């Protein structure tokens, strides 16, 4: 990736983090940590490798994105708002009654959201279905699915991984947001996923691992995934919950969902007034 593009994407990711924080900040609290940890991968998908556009959100040939860890909706909404899928002012309505931006991703409420998620463990199976549909129709669109590490304690994730691996779904790229934290603590202490790469390899998956906040590395891994004919790829993203917002990162496990004061978000977003 050339430095100019990288610089653009890094700036974009920083901007998405600001929109995410403003969105949750205006509401007063929400899923900050796990939204921020997937901003960089979302940025590379939506602003670089992905084939989708706000002008044609229902294009049957568009690439699909399933945010299976549906509570990270705000990060996805920030991207979609910035890309013009809906007016940017909509971010002020997060979780308000009648909003088009609910806490968890909803394909029927938000333009640009490809799959409803929120009951953890379900989105990856849906992504597998989308990838199989593409194969059936001999279409070239790709499906990207972002799963959580805590979410991976759900058995259905492993049912889906087993089938994706055995079917060799090379049009499906799975990302695990490996921030190693969940609501009640550290995944390693509650119910560890380790040895995670070995598990994926044992499921016949092309297994890659990168710094989940290094956009160039993420981009490189996605290129490798596309090139891996006949193999479904999972990319382990080593991430930090709350990344990019010091006071969110500092909360550690507590960054999952917490209250943000008005002065906090306004200072971070550089918005003294509306």
């Amino acid at each position, binding site marked *: 990736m050339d430095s100019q593009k990288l610089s653009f994407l890094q700036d974009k990711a920083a901007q998405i983090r600001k929109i995410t924080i403003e969105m949750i900040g205006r509401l007063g609290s929400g899923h900050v940590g796990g939204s921020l940890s997937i901003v960089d991968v979302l940025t590379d998908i939506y602003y670089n490798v992905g084939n989708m556009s706000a002008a044609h959100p229902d294009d049957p040939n568009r690439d*699909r994105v399933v945010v299976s860890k549906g509570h990270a909706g705000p990060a996805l909404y920030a991207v979609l708002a910035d890309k013009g899928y809906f007016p940017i002012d909509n971010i002020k309505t997060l979780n308000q009654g009648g909003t088009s931006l609910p806490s968890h991703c909803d394909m029927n409420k938000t333009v640009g959201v490809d*799959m409803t998620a929120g*009951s953890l463990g379900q989105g990856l*199976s849906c992504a597998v279905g989308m990838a*199989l549909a593409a194969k059936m129709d001999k279409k070239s669109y790709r499906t990207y699915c972002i799963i959580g590490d805590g979410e991976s304690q759900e058995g259905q994730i492993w049912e889906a991984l087993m089938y994706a691996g055995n079917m060799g779904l090379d049009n499906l790229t799975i990302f695990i947001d490996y921030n190693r934290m969940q609501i009640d603590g550290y995944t390693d202490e509650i119910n560890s996923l380790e040895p995670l790469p070995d598990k994926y390899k044992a499921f016949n998956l092309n297994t890659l691992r990168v710094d989940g906040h290094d956009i160039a590395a993420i981009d490189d891994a996605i290129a490798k995934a596309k090139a891996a004919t006949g193999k479904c790829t999972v990319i382990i993203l080593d991430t930090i919950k709350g990344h990019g917002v010091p006071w969110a990162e500092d909360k550690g496990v507590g960054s999952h969902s917490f209250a943000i004061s008005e002065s906090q978000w306004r200072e971070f977003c550089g918005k003294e007034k509306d």
Partner: protein
Amino acid sequence: MNDIKEMRAVYCESLIELARDNKDIVVIEADLMNCIKTGDFKKNYPDRFFNVGIAEANMAGIAAGMSACGKIPFISSFGPFATRRCYDQLFISIAYSKLNVKVIGTDPGICAEVNGGTHMPFEDMGIMRCIPDIVCVEPTDAAQLKSLMPQIAAHKGLVYVRLYRKCSPKVYEEGDKFDLFKAKEISQGNDVTIIASGIMVDRALQAAKLLAEQGINAGVTNIHTWKPIDKDAVIAAIKRSGAIVVAENHNRYNGLTSAVSEVACEHCPAPVLSVSVNDKFGEVGKMPYLSDVYNLNVSDIVERAKQAIALKK
């Protein structure tokens, strides 16, 4: 038995026929292809057939994803595994997401016979009908299934089909037409109406015959679609006969008895008695034994009909 074709044969033949014109129809199985006999679908449309192994939640999720891309998946398993086992996936990934998937749950209630309590769903329609916007249907026999299949495939949304795999007692003639959303009034009676579904329709007809011999005029209405229920049919039955007996191969809680009572209470209160499973788990046995255990016999319907008539004001 005056049986004709196995229900599963009709199901698969209909699917093959429908899939000929509708390229979006796909079948996903979870290792019970050989039980519901969709192997012929696989032979005809190998690219539109998937077997995910013993993983019902994954099957439901994959169906949701395919539907999001325009496909119309038919997924099936034994009743408990097609419903209870993957309820949240059906609820969230399919129904809440407003996707278009058909779920076939086989071996309803006592039809599970020797597979016993783990495989014997008395609650499937009850839990499924709590899903908003769902259509829950129990085809009565081969002829009715054949007529309903194109409507089931054409209905956009989640449809649950409670399907006896084997030869259901023949009630209708080949070629009879049915409306997915309208009950079938088989006969009218002024003393009592037996509202029945599935294998209980044949028993209801036998009961009506016995009642007639005793001078009691019992009508029989077949409600195949429990949700949305044909309210007009229930109201008409109450207005005509003033008393109802519901005959269902299901737990009386949340099943057809409940659905009929909900209509009766709101629109025209009348005695609604039930021939159904009285809040019990399943167990192994053949149909005659199980019919005795759960009081689902013709004689039970006759008795309840007389009680219902006695309750009339």
